[in-house]
């Protein structure tokens, strides 16, 4: 079988990925190019006798080296066309073109043709071009460019076969390939001079192409030729061209290529309705209208939020039982507890299962969210969103394209930083992208909500609505402030990119494309995030488990257990079933049986399931089943009552043991050792522990606080009431805690995506510690000032809120230094 390697190149929005999906099917894998965060997609397919490997190069408008994507694409072509390398070299470049935007797309084609590798031109979206009244003579294009041309429509699955056939044909005819040359007229002398200088170069690439790129001052090529040529010699040629013709080589080459594209356009395209309004024009008249644009944008954001978070959350009602039964299955195969002696292995696996379930539970939400993002990208609304809001974001060092990541992170109450950070990929401005990645975690994530609810319920009952308003609207101001702070300090030297952004025509997305993309993203989440979070969960487990209870305490709890067991024994001594439960082992067995049934009965959703469950438990032990469902059996009923009481007592002992264990654990000691610092914010060790454990997943903060503050009398008090009564906090304490939670560091899942998107551990570490310092500083400030002026919790929160809003507004009018490429003649 013959192997063909194909590089798929094209400008953004040319439908390159639909062509990629059309030919390569589902068999594809994505990774990052080494060292950068640009996607490397590779697909495989078989055609007749050929095995084709297709590499989807990043979409680029040009083939110079001035954006990360262009650098990556160029490096790929250079490295993988080397016949001496061990990698198979590229045989063919497939250049996908948007037929309805021929001129600009051909600008890239001319650059690809020059490289010296056979090119196939794919006229994609040919159906759309036809609908717009464009008649394209593809045969003539093929003749003029002397390369094969294929007409396709990726979204309608037209032309895939023809493309594969053409790839095979071109591969066979490769030996007959003759280098494509553009006559650059007055520049030719200089090209030839450079070519001569390159004579000794061992590069496998076309000397002419290298010469042209060197005249364009392309840094990647300059590096590639290395010591074979001196920079001064190139500069001399550029200089002499400039003095002779009063033109820059760069502008000259670009103009020349656009003029060439124009020649093709005029020769091969007939436009039948030249001034007719397209559908895109009509839509944009409304969507980008000065009055309607912002309401429409808000409505779309609301819709995305409503569908993914609200309905996605409802969807988890259906997926939760699956996870719950998974959990029950795992518990089933673990060794059982001997009354209050729970084997550590059981504890460990339950902890791990809970940690993974907390994360897996979000998958339906993520899937919907990723699908909606893919749809918005395909439709072409994303750049419009950036167009509408850029003016505001620009002032804070962000970019119009930061809108969506911030919204996903939770601009309204409840989002998630993971998809938010993941969707920063498309932001072209490096500094704005970094700032967005680092500010998304400040938004109100879904898991913070129960924490707020708990604190508001405990300390701010009458002012709940006002406090919730403060919490949910302050995040965006904080994000903007921090973005401004970062871009004027640590990110100051980061590269910025000009805001020159295409507004592509609207397209109907393809179901296959949307599905593949959202599936791939969810898969990345499962693979990367869940695995690492589980690794951290192991560490946290150890920190909570060790050093464990002291001998004295163990004895104390054992004694307590004996008392409860004796009580149970006394209650049922005269029962006719007594001999079934007269040893400790038997009681323990029955207790486990009872608890397990209760847990499973809660997970069963339908009557049918419940019946099945009853049957199963009857089979396991018919006697115990009578205790479970005594019906009119009076003796069994007594046992039922006694066992229910015993189950409650056991839970109480277990809880007390757990609390003592947490208090003495490494994590508990850490929380205590932090008290000297956190006391200024009013935090005691319990709050510290809750924040420390929230690091694994936010949900655990509420769980930890809940279990710490539960008073040990087994009453049915809710966590809110228990906290308000037992903690000794004032609302001012609570306000400080809330402020810290607003600024709290990202959870582990978010940190991993931060690492993925910044491609640096340094920034990940920064993303953890900066919020901690900021949070402590802000809550200490609020707490201390609040104490001095004896403010109430709400007053302190309001003061903090208005201070932040005020500073943000002032900064909005402070001149932004986002344009650092200013200069040229204007400055003189």
């Amino acid at each position, binding site marked *: 079988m013959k192997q063909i390697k194909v590089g798929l190149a094209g400008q953004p929005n040319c439908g390159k990925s639909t062509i990629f999906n059309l030919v390569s099917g589902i068999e594809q894998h994505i990774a990052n190019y080494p060292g950068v965060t640009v996607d490397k997609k590779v697909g495989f397919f078989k055609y007749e006798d050929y095995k084709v490997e297709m590499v989807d190069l990043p979409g680029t*408008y*040009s083939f*110079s080296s*001035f954006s990360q994507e262009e650098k990556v694409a160029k490096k790929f072509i250079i490295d993988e066309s080397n016949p001496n390398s061990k990698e198979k070299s590229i045989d063919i470049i497939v250049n996908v073109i948007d037929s309805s*935007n*021929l*001129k*600009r797309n051909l*600008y890239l084609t001319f650059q690809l043709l020059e490289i010296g590798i056979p090119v196939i031109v794919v006229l994609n979206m040919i159906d759309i071009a036809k609908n717009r009244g464009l008649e394209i003579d593809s045969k003539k294009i093929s003749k003029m460019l002397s390369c094969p041309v294929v007409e396709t429509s990726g979204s309608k699955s037209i032309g895939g076969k023809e493309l594969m056939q053409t790839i095979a044909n071109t591969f066979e005819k490769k030996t007959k390939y003759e280098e494509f040359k553009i006559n650059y007229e007055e520049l030719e002398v200089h090209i030839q001079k450079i070519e001569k200088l390159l004579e000794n170069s061992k590069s496998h690439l076309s000397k002419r192409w290298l010469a042209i790129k060197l005249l364009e001052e392309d840094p990647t090529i300059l590096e590639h030729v290395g010591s074979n040529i001196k920079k001064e010699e190139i500069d001399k040629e550029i200089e002499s061209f400039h003095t002779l013709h009063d033109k820059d080589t*760069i*502008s000259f080459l*670009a*103009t020349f290529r*656009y*003029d060439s594209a124009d020649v093709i356009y005029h020769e091969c395209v007939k436009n039948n309705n030249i001034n007719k309004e397209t559908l*895109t024009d009509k839509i*944009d008249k409304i969507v*980008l*209208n*000065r*009055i309607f*644009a*912002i309401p429409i944008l808000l409505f779309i954001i609301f819709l995305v939020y409503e569908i993914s978070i609200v309905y996605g959350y409802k969807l988890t009602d259906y997926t939760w039982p699956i996870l719950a039964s998974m959990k029950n299955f795992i518990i089933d195969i673990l060794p059982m507890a001997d009354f209050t002696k729970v084997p550590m292995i059981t504890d460990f696996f339950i902890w791990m299962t809970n940690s993974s379930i907390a994360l897996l539970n979000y998958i339906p939400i993520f899937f919907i969210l990723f699908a909606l993002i893919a749809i918005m990208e395909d439709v072409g609304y994303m*750049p419009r969103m*950036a*167009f*509408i*809001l*850029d*003016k*505001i974001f*620009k002032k804070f060092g962000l970019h*119009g394209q930061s809108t969506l990541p911030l919204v996903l992170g939770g601009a309204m109450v409840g989002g998630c930083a993971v998809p938010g950070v993941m969707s920063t990929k498309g932001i072209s401005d490096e500094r704005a992208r970094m700032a967005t990645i680092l500010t998304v975690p400040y938004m109100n994530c879904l898991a913070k909500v129960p924490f707020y609810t708990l604190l508001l319920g405990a300390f701010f009952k009458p002012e709940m609505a006002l406090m919730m308003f403060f919490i949910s609207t302050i995040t965006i101001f904080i994000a903007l402030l921090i973005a401004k702070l970062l871009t004027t300090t640590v990110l100051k030297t980061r590269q910025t*990119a*000009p*805001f*020159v*952004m*295409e*507004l*592509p025509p609207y397209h109907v997305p393809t179901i296959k494309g949307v599905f593949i993309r959202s599936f791939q993203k969810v898969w990345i989440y499962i693979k990367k995030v869940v695995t690492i979070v589980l690794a951290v969960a192991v560490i946290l487990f150890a920190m909570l488990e060790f050093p464990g209870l002291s001998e004295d305490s163990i004895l104390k709890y054992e004694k307590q257990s004996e008392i409860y067991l004796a009580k149970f024994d006394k209650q049922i001594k005269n029962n006719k079933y007594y001999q079934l439960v007269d040893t400790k082992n038997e009681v323990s067995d029955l207790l486990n049986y009872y608890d397990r049934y209760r847990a499973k009965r809660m997970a069963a959703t339908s009557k049918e399931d419940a019946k099945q469950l009853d049957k199963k438990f009857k089979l396991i032990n018919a006697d115990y089943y009578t205790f479970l469902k005594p019906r009119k059996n009076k003796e069994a009923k007594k046992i039922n009552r006694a066992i229910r009481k015993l189950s409650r007592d056991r839970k109480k002992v277990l809880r007390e043991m757990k609390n003592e264990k947490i208090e003495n654990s490494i994590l508990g000691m850490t929380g205590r050792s932090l008290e000297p610092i956190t006391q200024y914010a009013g935090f005691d060790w319990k709050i510290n522990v809750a924040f420390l454990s929230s690091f694994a997943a936010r949900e655990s903060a509420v769980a930890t606080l809940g279990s710490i503050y539960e008073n040990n009398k087994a009453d049915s008090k809710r966590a809110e009431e228990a906290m308000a009564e037992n903690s000794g906090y004032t609302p001012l304490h609570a306000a400080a805690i809330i402020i810290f939670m607003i600024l709290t560091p990202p959870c582990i899942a978010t940190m991993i995506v931060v690492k993925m998107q910044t491609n640096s551990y340094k920034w990940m570490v920064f993303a953890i510690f900066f919020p901690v310092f900021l949070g402590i500083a802000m809550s200490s400030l609020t707490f201390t000032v609040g104490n001095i002026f004896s403010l109430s919790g709400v007053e302190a929160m309001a003061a903090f809120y208005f201070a932040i809003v005020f500073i943000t507004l002032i900064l909005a009018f402070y001149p932004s230094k986002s*344009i650092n*490429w*200013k*200069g*040229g*003649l*204007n400055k003189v």
Partner: protein
Amino acid sequence: MIMLDTLSKGQKAKIKKIRTDGKLLRRLLDMGFVMNSEIEVIREAPLFDPMELKIQNYYISIRKSEASLIEVKI
């Protein structure tokens, strides 16, 4: 000297010179802001900045601060 950012909605012009260098110059050239190419102002963003243009038969948006570096002739 007329700069691109001063044009209003619906006005057409031709690119005369780009008064900048480096990354912005290359980006503008790549997007089709080459000498003598025709340009039409389609609209301003709802908050008055950036602006949307038609060039080489497609639509592009550009911040006014960048448009102010492009010299045009009407």
